[in-house]
């Protein structure tokens, strides 16, 4: 229990209103985890921010009291990025959900961080535009969270990620100052701090307003579902499509186990007996899509069944199975781990075989759902917590899959972020020098390590020039007073 939290709570009540400061034990506990429900930490305080001023005042108060803070949007993240700090303040932006402006003539949208991803597209669609990054949780995840994680989605194969669609942001830096990064026009002068901020997982500050790039709605979208007997065939078809110079809007793959789960959950009706299904979206001008579609059909010749979506309703049904896959596995297994790793796309068939080996070696089933187009895997490691040892084996298997990603020159996370879940894996992808360099940026923004400490980096870097002494929220007050040392 950090001394002074009471005082901080009082100061915050005065600054932003008592109804925005939560101290009730049971209510605090509802915020103790995000989408990664395995890990829970009860925050000392929760602040429900209603405006940029609230965020700035809260961060300022935290900075003055040297209390750490963690930001949270919808709380749907899968890497524990919004896992609270036990001695800190959880700053929740879910009430900052105003769409400030949709400006189709500038191809921009300006939104508060709590705005739901899908709502941006809904607001832009009547004007002929959409917001391209579409994580599977887009009906519930927030733009602020997307910015923190540099979220992707199935259609980022063609359209890019959040960082390619954020052109400006107002950011409250960890010292409580409000700074503008980027803007409505491109190429703001100076360092691309915005580019460093997107994907920094809440460790560099909190955004209070984001300017997004909108993309013109495609003239045509064609979706096909191809069922293959084996994953290898599906993988080969994917390679052939990409190799032919076609850039589909999305190429997604699900294996037999994932299909089974999706069927149980949403009755998507995928072809029975498929070892793997491919869902391919092609979009763009009519004439281009026609030409590409014909190509893709030929390249999927090995499929035993191909379905072409006849309209929006059918397209939605094809995608429904894929988009609900994660939560759907809950119907075929009591517990599961959602993994997120990247490999070079060409290594897909081989890695999937290796994952099969991992699954057998550890005695846990693995359902595979992934963005076949860019090699971003989402193995779902299934287990039953009630069976002794199974949870541990699942964790080990999950880690072994990440090993594979690194072995094949990929990444430990394609979309979900490092959070607290993968800090221990960072040294396998980056050298000490690499991590130290990243932390130079962190020190520039957050010299006192108050912004989401403990996330992304396994060991905090000293930001001052004082060797051997830890600074910031990790230091016990007695240490700071020079009265004690940790041995």
């Amino acid at each position: 229990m950090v001394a002074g939290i009471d005082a901080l709570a009082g100061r915050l009540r005065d600054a932003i209103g008592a109804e925005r400061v939560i101290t009730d034990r049971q209510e605090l506990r509802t915020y103790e985890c995000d989408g990664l429900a395995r890990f829970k930490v009860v925050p000392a305080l929760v602040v429900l921010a209603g405006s940029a001023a609230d965020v700035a005042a809260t961060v300022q108060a935290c900075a003055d009291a040297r209390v750490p803070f963690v930001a949270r949007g919808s709380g749907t993240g899968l890497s524990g990025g919004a896992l609270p700090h036990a001695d800190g303040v959880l700053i929740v932006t879910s009430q900052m959900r105003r769409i400030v402006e949709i400006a189709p003539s500038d191809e921009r949208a300006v939104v508060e961080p709590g705005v739901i991803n899908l709502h941006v597209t809904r607001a832009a669609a009547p004007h002929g535009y959409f917001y391209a990054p579409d994580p599977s949780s887009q009906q519930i995840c927030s733009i602020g969270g997307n910015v923190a994680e540099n979220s992707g989605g199935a259609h980022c194969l063609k359209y890019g990620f959040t960082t390619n669609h954020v052109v400006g942001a107002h950011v409250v830096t960890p010292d409580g100052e409000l700074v503008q990064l980027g803007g409505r026009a491109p190429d703001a002068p100076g360092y691309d701090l915005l580019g460093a901020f997107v994907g920094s997982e809440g460790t560099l500050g909190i955004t209070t307003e984001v300017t997004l790039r909108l993309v013109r709605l495609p003239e045509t979208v064609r979706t096909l579902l191809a069922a293959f007997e084996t994953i290898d065939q599906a993988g080969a078809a994917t390679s052939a499509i990409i190799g032919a110079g076609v850039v589909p809007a999305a190429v997604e793959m699900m294996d037999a186990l994932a299909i089974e789960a999706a069927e149980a959950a949403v009755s998507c009706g995928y072809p029975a007996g498929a070892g793997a299904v491919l869902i391919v979206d092609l979009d763009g001008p009519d004439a281009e899509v026609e030409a590409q579609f014909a190509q893709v059909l030929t390249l999927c010749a090995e499929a035993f069944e191909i379905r072409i979506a006849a309209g929006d309703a059918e397209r939605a049904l094809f995608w429904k199975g894929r988009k609900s896959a994660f939560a759907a596995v809950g119907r075929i297994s009591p517990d599961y781990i959602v993994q997120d790793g990247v490999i070079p796309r060409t290594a897909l068939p081989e890695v999937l075989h290796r994952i099969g080996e991992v699954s057998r070696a550890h005695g846990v089933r693995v359902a595979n759902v992934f963005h076949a187009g860019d090699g971003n895997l989402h193995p779902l490691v299934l287990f039953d917590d009630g069976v002794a040892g199974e949870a541990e084996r699942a964790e080990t298997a999950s880690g072994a899959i990440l090993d594979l990603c690194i072995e094949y020159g990929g990444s430990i996370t394609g979309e979900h972020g490092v959070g607290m879940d993968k800090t221990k894996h960072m040294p396998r992808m980056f050298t000490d020098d690499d991590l130290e360099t990243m932390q130079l940026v962190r020190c520039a923004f957050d010299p006192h390590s108050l912004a989401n400490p403990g996330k992304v980096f396994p060991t905090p870097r000293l930001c001052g020039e004082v060797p051997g002494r830890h600074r910031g929220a990790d230091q016990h007050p007695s240490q700071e007073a020079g009265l004690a040392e940790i041995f």
Partner: protein
Amino acid sequence: MEDVLGPIAGEPAFDADHPPRSDLIADCVHCGFCLTTCPTYVLWGEEMDSPRGRIYQMKQGLDGEPLTASMVRHFDACLGCMACVTACPSGVQYDRLIEDTRAQVERRHIRGLTDRARRAVIFALFPYPGRLRLLRGPLRAYQATGLQRLVARTGLLNRLAPTLATLDSLAPRLTSVPRPPRRVPARGPRRAVVGMLTGCVQAAFFPDVNAATIRVLAAEGCDVLIPPEQGCCGALSVHNGRAEQARGFARKLIDVFERTGMDYFVVNAAGCGSSLKEYDVLLADDPAYAEKARTFTAKVRDLSELLAELGPVAERHPLPVTVAYHDACHLAHAQGVRSQPRALLNGIPGLRLREIADPEICCGSAGVWNVLNPGPAAELGDRKARDVLATGATLLVTANPGCLMQVAASVARLGGRIDLAHTARVLDASIRGLSVDELH
């Protein structure tokens, strides 16, 4: 301030008598897909008033946390609309969880005096069609003399008694309709024998809906049985945690209709239908009624469900009108009945059907939730009214008296205009060749 890491003080929230089930709670994977469809999350943006958060608090209760006023407030705030059940990819049976939780709250939590008094009045009144009918006279006088308009202008009622004010704003304009006979024979070849629920609010304040329902069923080849001794179905009670009261009503209703030899039991109120389809769960622990309840439950159909199942035979005359169809939560989310009413409306020549934006978000009626929570209910009602008016339709059709009253009041509050009708009345008008004007 409490030490959140310290020991839990007080008695655990739930006892062993039907607590929220831990296996159902374990189905929740904390994905959050329910949040944006939950009306209270839409209003307040707080985890504690979201399905995910409420499930979390139930789990805390099972783990030993006490039933605090805060917890109760969050459970009470749930509308019971079950939009979360529709949205949940993991199949969490939140409806079951909240019902058990509410029953525990009613039994184990001492409410404040005003709250208790309010609830006592509501539950002494609404489930009793006879008592509701007694209000008709005074209410009609109140409306006819212009007193209601006067009161509305002064805003006096709002300040003195928000609950009464809500009831007042919701009260429909009354019509006079004779009570139905005990049996109405099918027109033409008989295809089914159906028992019909006359309901409480529906019977007292919308008897024309019941009359229309009977006519439509008869026209479609059903013998309709309407025993006048039937009572409340118990939906309001079970949705608000008064399980024993609900069971009493259920037993009585089963008894009344057991003798009729009906093939189906038809309901024209969404809230009632959803509860009737769960009589088997409500009476599962009663050895005398468990089997009867199962038999009964298997026969329950919403009006639109049954008509779709039987297939239309009565000729439809044109009704040139643009209609917005509103999905009552207890019909769409609780019973999964969405396509049948639309198919029936689309089957009327000349009728143009428009979809309302955000159809899965509740209008704010939710049984008596709008009477117990007038402020937020008005906000939700206003949202729905705006979305309804935005369709440009001239007629709003829905299958629940509560929704009809709520949207009517909200539209009026916004200064808008739209006619309202129950699905049954629209079908009845088409079958009888009435004009659109006769629908309001």
